[in-house]
C-alpha cells in the first residue's frame, strides 16, 4: 500500500503516493461505490459508511457556496489582473460538442469534506456508534 505521501512530479501535476494506490481520500469512494457486488453476499454490518455515502449525495444549491465565491472574487487584486495566466491553447480550442456532461447545479462538497477528513485519519468516533446487526442494507443504490 502506498505510504500516502504526496510527491510533486513535474510542477503542476500532483501525484498522490509514490508507490501508487494513493491516499485513502483518493480511493475511498471507489472502494465504497465501485467494484463488484455479488448477490450472494451477506453484507457485513457497516459502521459509519451509511453516513458517509448519504452525505456524499447531499447536493444543495447553496447560498453559502455563492457567498464564498463572491467573497473570493472580491478578494482578488484586480489591479494586477494583467498578470493572469493566459488561456491554454489546448483547452481553448476544444469545441463544446461531443460527450455532454450532466452538470448539477450548485454542489456542496459535504461528502468530500468527510472523505478528506477520513483521508487524514481521524474518524474513530464512528466506532462509538457501531451497531452489530448483520445484513445491513447499505447498498441499495446503483
Amino acid at each position: 500500500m502506498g505510504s500516502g505521501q504526496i510527491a510533486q512530479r513535474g510542477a503542476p501535476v500532483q501525484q498522490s503516493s509514490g508507490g501508487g494506490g494513493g491516499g485513502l481520500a483518493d480511493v475511498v469512494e471507489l472502494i465504497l461505490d465501485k467494484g463488484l457486488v455479488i448477490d450472494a453476499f451477506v453484507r457485513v454490518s457497516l459502521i459509519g459508511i451509511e453516513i458517509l455515502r448519504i452525505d456524499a449525495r447531499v447536493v444543495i444549491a447553496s447560498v453559502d457556496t455563492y457567498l464564498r465565491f463572491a467573497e473570493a472574487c472580491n478578494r482578488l487584486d484586480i489591479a494586477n489582473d494583467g498578470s493572469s495566466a493566459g488561456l491554454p491553447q489546448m483547452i481553448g480550442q476544444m469545441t463544446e460538442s461531443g460527450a455532454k456532461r450532466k452538470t448539477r447545479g450548485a454542489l456542496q462538497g459535504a461528502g468530500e469534506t468527510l472523505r478528506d477528513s477520513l483521508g487524514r485519519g481521524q474518524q474513530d468516533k464512528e466506532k462509538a456508534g457501531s451497531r452489530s446487526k448483520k445484513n445491513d442494507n447499505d447498498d441499495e443504490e446503483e
Partner: protein
Amino acid sequence: MTVQYVYGVTDAGAEIPGQLKGIDGQEVSLVTHGRCAALVSDLAADRPLGTRDDLMAHQGVLQAIVEAGGTVLPFRFGGALTDRDAVVEELLSPHEDTFVEQLEPLRGQVEVRIKARYVEDAVLREMVQEEPEIAELNQRVRELPEDAAYYDRVRLGELIAQAFTRRRENDGQGLLDALAPRATAVAQHELSREDDVLDAGFLIDRKEREEFEKIVDQVGKEIDGRIHLRVAGPLPPYDFVGQET
C-alpha cells in the same frame, strides 16, 4: 465464529505477495475453484466494519495484487460469506464464467484516476476580465457595506457558479480528449464541487503507463496555473468491473 471477508477475485494460481495481511491483520489466502480464485481472510462474524483501517486494508490487499503484476476484479467494500465452502459454492462456482470473462480484458491493465480542479483565483480573475456582468457586480459589491450588498453578493456568486459550469464543459472535454487516446477505457465520475473540472478513471495498459504519464505531465504543464491535476495510480480497476453479478 468467523466469516470469510472477500476482497476480490483473481486468477487461479495467482501469487499472493508474501505475508499479505488484510482486515484486522488477518492473513490473506486464496480460495480456488476452476479458473479463478477469491482473495479472502478471516473476519469475526459480529465485527462491524467501516473504520479507516478497514478501508485501507481492503484497498491494500487489492493494491498489493496489482503491484505484483496480477489481475484482479476488485469487490466493493464490505462483502463476506460464511465460510470457505460458501466462497466456492455461492461465489466462485456460479459466477466462474463471468469472472473469467471480466478478468480477460483487464489483463495487463491498471486504473489511473485523475481529478482536475480549477485554481480558483486564476479562473475568477479570468471571469472578471471576460464577463462584464461579473465584473460590474464585483465592483458594486466592493463599494457597498456587506449587509447592503447581500443580494448582490448572492447573485455574484450564482453567476460565478454558472461561469464555472460553462467553462467546465469545454475544459473537461479538452482534458478528456488529451488524456483518453492512450487509455483502453475511461470512466467518468460525477463531480462533487463547482470548481471541479474532471474526475475520471483511465484504464491503462501497463506497457502504456509511462507514455500516459508523460502525457499527463505535458497536459499538466499546459494548464498550469489554471487547472490543477491530481493523479492516483496504478490502482485496481474499480471503475472497470461490472457493478453487479
